[in-house]
């Protein structure tokens, strides 16, 4: 059997089997899902990119197979999927409806693989929708206010998916084929109005999943209230499907004459990243903070893709991979805190560093990567992005990106400090470090983050072949655009990253050792309430944790920007529609005689119109 089919059968069949297994032998469920995922990963890595599968359904020709581009995203999916499932076994312990959870988890991973292996639009849409509803079922799995949150996600996904479908059928009506190759080959032969419409419709579809600006309102709640083990995949891999789609559209379906589309997308992405960053800063819940941060980060990625330069695209894809790594680590870490402490409210938690040191390490590394500080990968990615934008003359975009990545420091700091540093509250004294099966995935991912800083080449290599399959040939002055441990820039300077990394880590370690040895004897633990030495009497309701009002000035400064949420417009629009629908309902007024009158009136109308206009 073709390994592609085997992959899908294993995924979907395994999902159903996990559901049934949970009904009868719940003890074996965890082992089964992890082994299944590992098996699928093995199968995935043993499947080459040359494998093609052609078949017909209902007279529609379909083709499956990985390209090097989709293979890149596939790696993200299977790696994150496996780690998140391992993490889940501990994280989800003791929750109910686990069969349901794992079934939909596996469904969505299988659907993502399906999307990536589709070489035609119909199977792409097919798996896209499976991904949508399976992720939806996990979004509504837990948390409160399920109705609104779930519906919002579903409505936006549906709008996105259906505008995609519209584009797909329009494309087919012109080209007569759903195969991506055929579509790419002949898209520019059709009228330019339709061309733009198709690109826009497709991008609405992908924009919803990647939470682009006016379509992002579902994302914060959906990310933050799903189980964290799934959010790691949701934000890490599932949103990358939108990025993947953007890449397909921007590189293949938008002709160079329509450069305006690229500009608009880049600007929307920039606005997304700035606003989402601002929102992230004012959140006091770590999960929501990370959710907004995800939206912002995907903004950078899309700016990179839309810059339409070799370096920019490379930066975008690099950031995409990196974001998958560090953001899922962060979600896992927050999930670990949530599980061990019971809350993720940063105004309540503090000083967990002694209780959960390994979680802290993972968080610290990821935060460094997120904030784009050297020596980790985030710096490399941002560097490339800035360079690409500057060399292509997008100075205003650079300002936007700079603004948002600077503001990102604020929330990076907050999450680190709010949860792990500061004084230790006595109520958290009993907190223990997360179990091993949660720590290992986090630490593995942190390790990847570290490597991405020192050896970006191992990520850039598959990216380069992916870009070749997207149609970007390296036509730039340097033969080799990267080396394993060295990043060049356009001006030909070399930055030896390993040296940078080792020196920074060395300094860090020395400083740490110094501080620890020096300060060990002198330190005394006080709780946040214990400031009686200043002579003030603290009331119990006064929470003196310092992160509470720290961001007030900033919040006040940006408030005019955030005052009117886009969400409110959607809500008003929905309310208006509902009122309209209620009005339509009055047609059926319950009086049978009226229905008969409608019939007669309709007949009379038809007779007049029919004899006049239908040409009888």
């Amino acid at each position, binding site marked *: 059997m073709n390994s592609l089919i085997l992959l899908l059968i294993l995924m979907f069949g395994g999902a159903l089997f996990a559901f049934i297994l949970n009904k009868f032998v719940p003890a074996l469920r965890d082992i089964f899902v992890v082994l299944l995922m590992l098996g699928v990963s093995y199968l995935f890595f043993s499947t080459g990119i040359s494998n093609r599968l052609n078949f017909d359904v209902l007279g529609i020709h379909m083709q499956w197979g990985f390209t090097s581009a989709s293979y890149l995203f596939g790696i993200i999916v299977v790696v994150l999927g496996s780690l998140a499932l391992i993490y889940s076994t501990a994280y989800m312990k003791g929750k109910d409806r686990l069969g349901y959870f794992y079934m939909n988890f596996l469904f969505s991973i299988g659907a993502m693989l399906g999307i990536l292996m589709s070489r035609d639009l119909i199977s792409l849409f097919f798996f896209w929708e499976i991904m949508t509803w399976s992720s939806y079922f996990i979004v509504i799995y837990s948390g409160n206010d399920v109705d609104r949150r779930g519906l919002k996600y579903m409505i936006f996904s549906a709008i996105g998916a259906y505008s995609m479908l519209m584009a797909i059928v329009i494309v087919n009506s012109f080209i007569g084929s759903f195969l991506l190759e055929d579509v790419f080959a002949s898209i520019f032969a059709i009228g330019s109005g339709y061309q733009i419409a198709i690109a826009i419709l497709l991008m609405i579809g992908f924009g919803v999943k990647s939470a682009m600006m006016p379509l992002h309102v579902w994302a914060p709640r959906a990310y933050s209230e799903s189980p964290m083990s799934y959010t790691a995949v949701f934000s890490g891999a599932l949103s990358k499907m939108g990025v993947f789609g953007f890449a397909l559209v921007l590189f293949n379906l938008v002709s160079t004459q329509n450069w305006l589309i690229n500009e608009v997308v880049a600007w929307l992405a920039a606005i997304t990243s700035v606003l989402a960053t601002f929102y992230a800063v004012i959140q006091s819940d770590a999960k929501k903070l990370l959710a907004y941060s995800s939206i912002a980060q995907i903004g950078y990625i899309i700016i990179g893709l839309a810059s339409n330069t070799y370096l920019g695209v490379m930066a975008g894809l690099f950031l995409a991979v990196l974001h998958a790594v560090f953001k899922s680590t962060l979600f896992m870490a927050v999930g670990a805190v949530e599980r061990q402490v019971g809350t993720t409210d940063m105004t309540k938690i503090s000083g967990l560093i002694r209780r959960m040191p390994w979680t802290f390490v993972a968080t610290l590394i990821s935060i460094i990567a997120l904030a784009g500080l050297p020596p980790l990968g985030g710096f490399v990615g941002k560097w490339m992005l800035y360079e690409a934008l500057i060399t292509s003359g997008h100075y205003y975009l650079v300002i936007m990106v700079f603004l948002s990545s600077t503001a990102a420091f604020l929330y990076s700091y907050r999450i680190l400090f709010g949860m792990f540093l500061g004084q230790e509250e006595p109520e958290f004294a009993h907190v223990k470090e997360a179990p091993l099966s949660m720590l290992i995935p986090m630490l593995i991912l942190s390790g990847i983050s570290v490597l991405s800083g020192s050896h970006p080449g191992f990520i850039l290599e598959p990216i380069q072949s992916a870009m070749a399959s997207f149609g970007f040939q390296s036509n730039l002055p340097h033969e080799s655009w990267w080396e394993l441990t060295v990043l060049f820039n356009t001006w030909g300077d070399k930055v030896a990253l390993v040296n940078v990394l080792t020196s920074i880590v060395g300094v860090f370690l020395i400083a740490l050792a110094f501080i620890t040895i020096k300060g060990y004897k002198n330190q005394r633990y006080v709780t946040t309430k214990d400031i009686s030495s200043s002579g003030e009497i603290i009331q119990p309701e006064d929470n003196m944790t310092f992160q509470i009002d720290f961001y007030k000035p900033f919040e006040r400064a940006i408030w005019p920007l955030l005052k009117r949420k886009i969400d409110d417009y959607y809500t008003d629009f929905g309310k208006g529609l509902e009122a309209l629908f209620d009005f339509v309902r009055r047609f059926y007024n319950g009086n049978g005689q009226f229905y008969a*009158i409608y019939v*007669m*009136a309709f*007949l*009379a109308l038809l*007779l*007049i119109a029919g*004899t006049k206009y239908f040409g009888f």
Partner: protein
Amino acid sequence: MMKRFFIFLILAIVGYYIVDVVSQIPFGENRVNVGDYYLDKSPSELKVSNTVTAIVVNYRGFDTLGEVTVLFLAATGLASIMFRRKRKGEKDIRAKKASSRIIQIGSQILFPIIILLGAYVFIHGHLSPGGGFQGGVIIATASLLMLISYRKFKVNHSTISWIESIAGIVFVLLGVTGLILGKTFLENFLPTGELNNLLSGGIIGIIYVAVGFKVAAELTGLIDTLLLNNRPEANKEK
């Protein structure tokens, strides 16, 4: 008032078109249609003098089967709609007062005559105007007469359902027999006899008799169900 005006307007429009269309159909003209074929074939091949009967029972016998079914369903449906659990000690009485002696005796005299007339009408359905439906309706009027003149006249619903079922099955089985004999459904398989003879027309006569029985039984049952439920105490039920 607006509503009434609106209805007038609609009906005026629809009426205009119906009049317009109907006035284009020439009146009293002998048009070429399938009727000519029937007029040609039914005396010569089927030996049925009443062409309408030939059409109803043979050429378009399938319609008639459907029609009988519609009646059967109406009876069944009506019984199901009117169905009501009987309260304890409740009696099947249709009216508070008995009708006058004159009516009672008059209906006693009329009853057998009407039944006879009905039977005549459906037995001679293939010879003269009339047939199973008409005969059945006449018989049902006889029972209606009895029902309104005698307060305690009982219709035995069990018998009615037997008659209904057997008559219906006879109709369908006659049709299926044709199929079994290698002909088509409802095709005549009996000798057709002589024109204008009582025993002519093959299965047509038999079918019409069955239809007569069925219609008579169904209508009687229907009338009885409606009358029984039309009592003041039944109206109280919510």
